[in-house]
């Protein structure tokens, strides 16, 4: 999967936890999940678990703690998908 395809699927993962859905239309790799999308930090574990299901991958703890921007999420998912 290329980064663009991962991003499109990632939007679906983030959607339930993003209050203002319009923000998802303008996200880029620098977008911070908490600061920019206003995702409550209590939902970050949900995002990781949903991403695991969406991409059929296992995200280890060390990788999970890097997933705080859209770009870093794509990095981790791309690495796991292409393993």
């Amino acid at each position, binding site marked *: 999967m290329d980064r663009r395809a991962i991003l499109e699927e990632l939007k679906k993962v983030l959607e339930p936890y993003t209050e203002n859905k319009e923000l998802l239309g303008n996200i880029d790799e620098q977008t911070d999940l908490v600061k920019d999308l206003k995702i409550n930090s209590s939902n970050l574990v949900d995002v990781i*678990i949903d991403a695991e299901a969406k991409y059929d991958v296992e995200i280890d*703890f060390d990788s999970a*703690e890097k997933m705080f921007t859209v770009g870093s999420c794509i990095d981790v998912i791309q690495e796991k998908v292409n393993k």
Partner: protein
Amino acid sequence: MNGYSLQVKPQRRFSTGNDIVALRATQPDRTSLPRFYSRILTVAEQELYDRLERPGLAFDHYTWLCWSIKESAYKFNKRNSPELVFSPLRITISELLPPASAAEGYYRCKITCGPAILYSRSLLRDGVIVTVVSDDPQFTNTRWGFQPIGSSAHADQSAAARALVLQELQATLHRDDLQLQKDEAGCPIVLAGGLPTGIPVSLAHHDHYIAWSFNYCH
């Protein structure tokens, strides 16, 4: 302004951290799955639950209590370490003392966060977990509180939390020229007459609740 002269020296390492979890906004079934709680609780913390004398504390509530403690500790430390990333498993709870009864008192906790030892107090009542963290086990200079609000919209919660803590600060400092800003790490700081006071503030909100804490030493 009432003429009272505020004399608070900026203290670089002075901090505070808080968090709030509205349990009705969590998913008990999902929280109780090992693949979920194992991202929050270390193995030792999972075992701690079995040893805990816990009046009516369900496992999913325990998981969110630990989350709240760890998030508060992270916010406490981030003020002095802006590069810090929240990683629940790197913040460990070594002691957790329940309140005398489910209805009264705090859960008190000792936390290891890197080289630092921190302490927390958590209230668990009315479906809400509210936590504050300090490096002072007595919490001598820590003020904290929470409040329900009508809206769960992010912008409304944020504005309400800021307004509430400013109200508390004005009552404590007897000044009406206080403002909240964020420092370079994104942590709230208090200005008086446009100048930094060194008083650290922490704000939290979740679902229909807001919470605040600050540290103030006369």
